[in-house]
């Protein structure tokens, strides 16, 4: 079957799920899983060399004939949508069940399918108007998913922030697509690299898609939205929705000409996002916020790759760009997989313990061994460590950038800081994930809530296992996934299409697999040895301290203290504390919180300024008719002057 029928069936099935979803959870699950499986089939077909698919309708929709198109780039993202969409659907059934949330769970099912359909629509649309249509629907459905739990003020505030930030981005995209349509005379999209006059539009696209992707200064909405959303929603937001911003940039940097400086700007923004995103991440106390900021970092990594590829294209189609782009696109998958896994794991913890604060958790591993194990696996992948998938894509980006440096061209000057940023961000990510994993799962429980925690059921476990399997598969056998990624890269820049894979992915895979086996063997051997040597249990020695309490354990803030200290200039942590005084001190405390600096130090003051202007202007409507007539006369005079000036020859 060609992708066409598959996609239409998938769409219909998902829409059917949307309609029946609120009332019939079981049927909804089956329909949604079928839908994503069929959609995945279409995408895989394109990625496995089945050829691109393109379709134009005879009838108009919103005044424009439909133009759908599935090529390598969109198919790659479609696979991600389907994977996480299916996983989240299964997970949500138990996590956000009708039993716990009788009001919002049915709504959530409908919006879930609306989100999936609109995401697919965005990926398929090759018409500016329809692209925007899907884009807005996707934004709105994501908003309603974030705010499923509308009773909580925090959730509503986070949702509103998301909504207005997204709308800001959308307004940029309005301008982008309208300008494109005005310049080309049609809403139709497609490869237009020849029209050099369009290149300056890229900046609008970067702004619009950058907001959605969560690039550093534009990420302000991201932490609170991802932290406050239900966790399966956080997973798809972080794993998939952010990637739509990436998709936009990749798509339009491939189709449209770009300005000469764009590669530099993108790689620069990527580096900044990677570094500062992870710096914020490390300093968080809320584990879902930590994961959210980590997404900023990963989007930064992806943009480093994309920017590298754009630089390569603008410097004579240098072949290393292919590596960078491949790394970026593979990282789209990888981040989608491991971040969704981590958010699902975080959801499991939240479900069990009822708090997002790491410093109130601890010692969860005996109660939730599955979650703990899977979370650690996700952490290793997210830190880019061998033998998992995070390493593979970062490694590809590194290879591309190192080649750029070796070429010693001007692009090398962009690649050098990017490499250093990537390396530093990787090391910082390790800090963050060691901290998060350990504080949640290791040591002694810090509060009583933790002691009552229970492992999640299979409904939540299976999707996590599936995502973990994806992480393992890409990590151990990257070569299997190369053809798909390389087709996407070719679709992005056809001039590279003829070249073979320049990266020894097979060797890397072999090494990773060997390493995996050796790790498993060595671990088993040592475990066996330790068991055979007694394996006696005793209280933690802790240098002979006799009465350790759970409160004496290292906290999130103290663990991150050193690294966070280096970033004080941007983190601007707020510290409130009272020292213990006297012989029998009472009521001492120390609270440290890291604000969202860009939001609170930059955007809030600007917003306050606008509101002040608004307040001043609103005072003009003070109820006195006399002034109203005066305004009218003023308008008359103003227009008169305008016409006089314009009319004067």
């Amino acid at each position, binding site marked *: 079957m060609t992708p066409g029928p598959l996609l239409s069936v998938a769409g219909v099935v998902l829409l059917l799920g949307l309609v029946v979803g609120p009332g019939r959870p079981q049927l909804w699950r089956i329909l949604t899983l079928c839908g994503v499986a069929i959609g995945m089939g279409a995408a895989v077909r394109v990625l496995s060399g089945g050829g691109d698919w393109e379709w134009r309708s005879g009838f108009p929709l919103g005044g424009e004939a439909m133009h759908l198109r599935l090529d390598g780039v969109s198919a790659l993202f479609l696979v991600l949508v389907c994977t996480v969409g299916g996983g989240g659907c299964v997970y949500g059934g138990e996590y956000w069940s009708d039993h716990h949330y009788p009001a919002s769970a049915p709504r959530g099912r409908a919006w879930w399918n609306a989100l999936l359909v609109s995401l697919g629509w965005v990926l398929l649309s090759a018409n500016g108007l329809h692209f925007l249509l899907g884009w807005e629907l996707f934004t709105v459905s994501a908003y309603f998913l974030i705010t499923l739990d509308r009773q909580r003020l925090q959730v509503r505030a986070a949702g509103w922030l998301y909504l207005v930030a997204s709308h800001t981005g959308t307004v940029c995209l309005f301008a982008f697509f309208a300008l494109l349509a005005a310049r080309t005379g049609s809403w139709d999209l497609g490869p237009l690299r020849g029209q050099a006059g369009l290149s300056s539009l890229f900046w609008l696209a970067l702004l619009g898609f950058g907001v959605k992707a969560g690039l550093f200064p534009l990420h302000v909405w991201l932490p609170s939205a991802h932290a406050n959303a239900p966790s399966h929603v956080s997973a798809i937001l972080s794993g998939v929705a952010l990637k739509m911003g990436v998709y936009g940039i990749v798509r339009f940097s491939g189709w449209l000409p770009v300005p000469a400086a764009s590669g530099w700007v993108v790689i620069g923004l990527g580096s900044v996002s990677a570094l500062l995103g992870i710096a914020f991440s490390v300093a968080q106390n809320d584990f879902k916020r930590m994961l959210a900021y980590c997404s900023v970092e990963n989007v930064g990594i992806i943009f480093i790759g994309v920017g590298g590829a754009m630089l390569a294209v603008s410097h004579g189609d240098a072949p290393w760009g292919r590596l960078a782009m491949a790394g970026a696109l593979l990282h789209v998958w990888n981040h989608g997989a491991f971040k969704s896994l981590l958010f699902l794991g975080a959801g499991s913890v939240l479900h069990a313990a009822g708090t997002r604060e790491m410093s109130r958790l601890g010692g969860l591993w005996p109660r939730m061994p599955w979650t703990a194990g899977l979370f650690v696996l996700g952490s*290793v992948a997210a830190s880019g460590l*061998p033998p998992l998938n995070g390493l593979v894509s970062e490694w590809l980006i590194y290879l591309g950038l*190192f080649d750029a440096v*070796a070429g010693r061209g001007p692009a090398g000057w962009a690649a*050098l800081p990017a490499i250093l940023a990537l*390396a530093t961000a990787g090391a910082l990510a390790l800090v963050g994930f060691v901290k998060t994993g350990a504080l949640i799962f290791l040591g002694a429980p810090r509060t009583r809530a933790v002691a009552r925690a229970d492992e999640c059921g299979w409904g939540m476990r299976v999707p996590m296992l599936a995502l973990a399997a994806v992480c393992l598969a890409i990590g151990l056998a990257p070569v299997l996934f190369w053809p798909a990624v390389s087709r996407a890269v070719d679709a992005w820049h056809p001039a590279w299409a003829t070249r073979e894979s320049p990266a020894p992915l097979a060797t*890397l895979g072999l090494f990773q697999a060997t390493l995996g086996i050796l790790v498993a063997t060595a671990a088993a051997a040592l475990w066996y040895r*330790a068991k055979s040597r007694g394996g006696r249990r005793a209280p933690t020695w*802790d240098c002979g301290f006799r009465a350790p309490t759970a409160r004496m354990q290292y906290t999130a803030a103290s*663990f991150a203290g050193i690294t966070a200290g280096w970033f004080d200039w941007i983190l601007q942590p707020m510290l409130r504390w009272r020292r213990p005084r006297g012989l029998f001190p009472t009521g001492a405390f120390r609270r440290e919180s890291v604000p969202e600096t860009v939001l609170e130090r930059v955007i809030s003051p600007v917003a306050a300024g606008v509101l002040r202007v608004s307040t001043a202007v609103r005072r003009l409507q003070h109820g006195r008719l006399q002034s109203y007539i005066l305004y009218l006369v003023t308008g008359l005079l103003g227009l008169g002057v305008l016409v006089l000036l314009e009319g004067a020859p």
Partner: protein
Amino acid sequence: MIVMLDLVLRLALWLLLPPLLPGLINKVKAWVAGRRGPPVLQLYHDLARLWQKDVVLSNLASPGFVIAPAVAWVALVGAAMLLPLGPTGAAFGFRGDVLLLVYLLALARFATAWAALETGSAFGGMGAAREVSYAVLTEAALVAAVLSLSVQSGSITLATLLAPAAGAGAVLLAGGLFAVLLAENCRVPFDDPNTHLELTMIHEVMVLDHSGPPLAVILHGASLKLLLFSVLLTEAVLPLGRLPPFVAAAALAGGVLSVILGVGLVESLLARFAFRRVPLLLTTAFLLCLFSLLVAWNGGAA
């Protein structure tokens, strides 16, 4: 067959030689202090004894407490196997293996820190936090060093990367990498491997609660890491690839020994730094590597 033999010999070398190094360092220190010091082979005895000893696990520890040292050890062995050994080259080199080496070191670090946090002791947290935090700077320095070598050789395969000399920036690179070596292996002035039970340590506090075979694995891994860095430093600075094989082998051995001597001397002559000055020193190391990178870049352009 030859390949297998090569592999086995390398493995043997990497497994058997490392415990010698701490002994040598201790000898140097004793010699400077005018003492006799412990035997050179002390660590071998210790390892053997620990392997036989019973294990006591914390009540709070998960299986990860035992697994993590094994993971770290395998990661270090893997990293070591990637490293070429002077004239014999690498066991298996491929494009980008140098990055894998860096990330294997990171994996080892992840495992060590994880194990340290298992017991919920404040000491473990302290050590782990310091370990992973300072590693941010050492990793940046290491990658800068790799970049500088890569710019010079035009390659990102360890074997070709390390073959030529470091060129004009060799001194800078040597300084930077030596500092990285000291930091990564928790030597003075970053850490003090001799003191115990002090709040200001890194590595030792992380392994406080380990005992028996896991501790043996950790200690062996630590010494392996020391050897790994010594070899890396030597090969990065000396133009081994341009020397005849035997001379190169001798140069390598000599290089490693002089690094060890250097470590011993530093430990004898310097005191441990205050913790707030550690990042400063590491930043200096990073800058040294960065300068060597710039030198390499300009040298190539000229």
